[in-house]
């Protein structure tokens, strides 16, 4: 499977010398120690590393949820690290979708309403029903999170993330809270979205098996990139052995 690209040679993300330090003085924690990185449009990239390796921090910075202490990040031609809060909000609104380990659905909203929460502020969203159909939940649109299984909740979260047709989908341990069969189903949805919509997908995981479905795998440890593997023939999500 070839990555689909709609932007020619301009990469989706470029990062150089990105550092992130939490706290100050003796209690300071270096989460990122100078990360250089390039992600192409339409790729599925898996960030692989132990917990605490800094991969979530990197994803938060790329997604505009957090700010780097130092270094530069570009999304296409936009200089993310130079943006103010308002511009970052705009960026998240127009280009980005998130999927979190614990789904982070609004418990007081139904599946459909959780998706609509996002489509309401998007320019060219698909309908909530369509997005839920895409993740195989067409029959459970009016259920509240408490009435859905973990896998179903995560698929709602994915529907919510893709419904506004973002350029990039950030997934932080999307299968971390799921059993292997459900996890595989969720990964297949991500793969489908990438294939059908050409969305760039960034997945964070500490489960090495997930790496099989990526175009590229970035190994992370101690706040820095240790190794980048290119996967010439990514496996189909269903084939992944947990």
């Amino acid at each position, binding site marked *: 499977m070839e990555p689909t690209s709609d932007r020619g040679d301009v990469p989706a993300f470029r990062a150089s010398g990105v550092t992130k330090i939490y706290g100050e003085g003796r209690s300071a924690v270096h989460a990122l120690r100078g990360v250089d990185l390039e992600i192409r449009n339409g790729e599925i990239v898996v960030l692989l590393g132990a917990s605490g390796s800094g991969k979530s921090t990197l994803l938060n910075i790329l997604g505009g949820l957090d700010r780097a202490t130092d270094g530069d990040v570009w999304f296409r031609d936009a200089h993310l690290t130079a943006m103010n809060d308002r511009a970052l909000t705009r*960026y998240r609104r127009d280009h980005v979708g*998130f999927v979190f380990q614990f789904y982070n659905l609004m418990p007081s909203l139904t599946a459909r309403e959780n998706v*609509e929460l996002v489509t309401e502020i998007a320019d060219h969203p698909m309908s909530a029903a369509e997005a839920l159909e895409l993740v195989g939940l067409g029959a459970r649109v009016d259920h509240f999170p408490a009435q859905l299984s973990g896998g179903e909740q995560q698929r709602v979260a994915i529907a919510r993330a893709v419904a506004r047709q973002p350029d990039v989908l950030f997934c932080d341990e999307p299968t971390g809270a799921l059993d292997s069969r459900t996890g595989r189903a969720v990964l297949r949805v991500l793969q489908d979205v990438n294939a059908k919509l050409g969305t760039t997908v960034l997945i964070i995981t500490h489960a090495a098996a997930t790496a099989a479905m990526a175009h590229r795998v970035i190994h992370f440890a101690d706040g820095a990139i240790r190794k980048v593997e290119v996967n010439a023939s990514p496996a189909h999500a269903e084939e992944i052995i947990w």
Partner: protein
Amino acid sequence: MSPLHAKLLRDLWRIKGQALAIIVVIGIGVALQVMMSGVIASLTQTRDAYYQRHQFAEVFAGLSRAPEHVASRLRAIDGVAVAQTRLRGLALIDITTRDLPINALILSLPGGAARPLNEIMLTSGRMPEAGRLDEILLLDSFAKAHGLGPGDNLRVTLNGARRQFEIVGTALSPEFIYFAAPGELVPHDARFGVIWISRPALAAALDLEGAFNEVLITLVRGARSEAVLDRVDRILDPYGAPGSYDRDEHPSNRFLNEEFKGLTASARNVPPVFMLVAAFLLYIVTSRMLQSEREEIGLMKAFGYTDAEVGGHYLQMVVLIALAGALFGSVLGVAMGRLIIPLYAGFYKLPFLLFRLDLAAFLSGLIISVGVASLGGVVVLRRIFRLTPAEAMRPPAPPDYSRAGHVAQALLERFDQPTRMVFRRIFRQPWRMLGAVAGIAAGMALSLSMLIIYDGFDEALTRTFEVIDRSDASVSFTAPEPYRVIYDLRRLPGVMRVEPVRNVPVILRKGRREFSGAITGLSTDAELFRALDADGAPIPLPARGIVLSSTLARILDAAPGDVLNVDIREGRQPEVQIVVAAISESLLGSPAFMEIDALNRALDEPGRVSGAYLSVSDGDEAAVHAALRDMPRVVGVSLRREARAAFEVIMDQGAGSARFIMGLMAFAITFGIIYNAARVARDERARDLASLRVLGFHRGETAFVLLGELAVVTLAALPIGLLVGRFMSHMIAAGFSTDLYQIPVVFAPRAQGMAIAIVVGAALASGWLVKRDIDRTDIITSLKTRE
């Protein structure tokens, strides 16, 4: 419906318990404001309407006797609309159930006047028939107080002659709404009667045929009463008129105005204290509630919602709660107002009632509650917005307790794990805990100050009627008498002690301030009635100079050493200058004291007394009363216990009565605050508690973790509540003090104990309610979802 609106409504439903507690607390604050100002607006309007419909006169003048034709000269005065003459006399009523005669005013009925001034309103029976000289009407409240009505007979001493009248009806009048018998401080229905009789009958009894001795005047619109008063005085001066006066000086109207002023003061000063506490609680709760929404706020921002959009959403939630509180408060306030106003109307003897909602009170309550709620929301949201979405979505990092922690750690080692959980949480989130402590303390302070106020009312009565006044009875004479009348009184069997008193009506002036009242002359060795200083010690009355009560000193802005211009309104009406010698503490009225001989010297009437204080040996009261009744010079006898009872009625049914409702509301607020604290703690910890249950803790042990926290917070709030309550009670006492009486602040251990009991009781009840909730909650659900 947009998903945000759906979320809003469902979130509100989710926090309904908490929201309800807030709604109740705000509601009570607003309700009190709406009710009190509604009561005042309604009473004032009703009074005005009553005055207008019954043509209450605007200028009044009494005189000895003038031929009827003088009235036409009064009618010709520029600015006079109507002038009507009538007859007025003093009478004594013999009531078989009472061994002392009762003072009464006897008035002529207007007869044929088409629109009589001070028009009476018949409440039972009929008007006396023309030509019937023995038929009378009796003042409704007096008749009720003595169980009299149409068909009953009344024995009356009029102009020295005993006569028997038949009561044919009872009536209300705008000029006798609220008034005290001569020589008494406060009104008492049973102590003063008013009789209406046909003019020919009264004219015959008083030898006033073809003449009048009182005139009632209304003014044309826009006329100045000062100018009219002046002209009236000039015309009536040759006929023994002591001076005309307008409505401001009319005893009933003046007393009613004083009462309304007292009511207005407590309406204006007390509810804001409640609003303050409610607003403070609202602020704490709002900020705490939004704090717990932190992760959702981060998530919405992650989706690309702007600060304004997120802020708007959560502010809507807060404002909706505040609005609901304000609306609930208005409805409650109006409902309570409707319940309470008839009681006031009955007390003030208003014949009908106009209920009116005071829109300004509602609006200010609304604006305060919504404003404060929004402020609390904005403050917290700004703090959350400063975080990046990534930070907001993470649970807040625990504060660094590595240093302070060691001490606590050593301490905690002694306890079991659940106890440690309780203390850790308190140490980890000190601000949150302090918020809860402050909220409970504020509620407690409110309850405590209301309890202190209750004690203050009792104290005012005790100090006045047991410390200042220790007599059994006080006697007043028809006119100032030579001193030897005191010896006559002393000779009465059963009388143990008699002390002379000289009461003189005066106008006291200092600079532009003036007060029209009386100076009480007492002997230096007085024991039955004394001037006391702030510590309760008797003030020796100086050979020269005047002792002012602290209220009067405040009104005149006078201090010891200042010289007052005293305009004496009796006898030859001299004007003298008297130096202020000392300030006394008095809780009732605004008295001024002088040594009796010094006062007589100032009047140039040596050796005169206008009354006496008596102490009577137990068992001899009846004999003494009978003897007093036969003394022709005695115009009135007032018993201390009756005066005290009259005052109690004023305090419990007049302006002071609001304290009972306010007390109830204070207790309700206190409960609301504590219950809310318990609910919030439960909501925040539902997951932890479920985890504990999973780990094998019993329900009781699990509840301990939560209730232990509530207990610690409540205990911490007690001393703060006691302290703040002391401060707050001064504010509320000032609000309840009127020109008629002052409410002292006394910190009785009983009030403090009661306040503690209320708070602890509310905590126990809240704890029980919350524990019942925990027991009912399904563990799995709590583990899976928030709430």
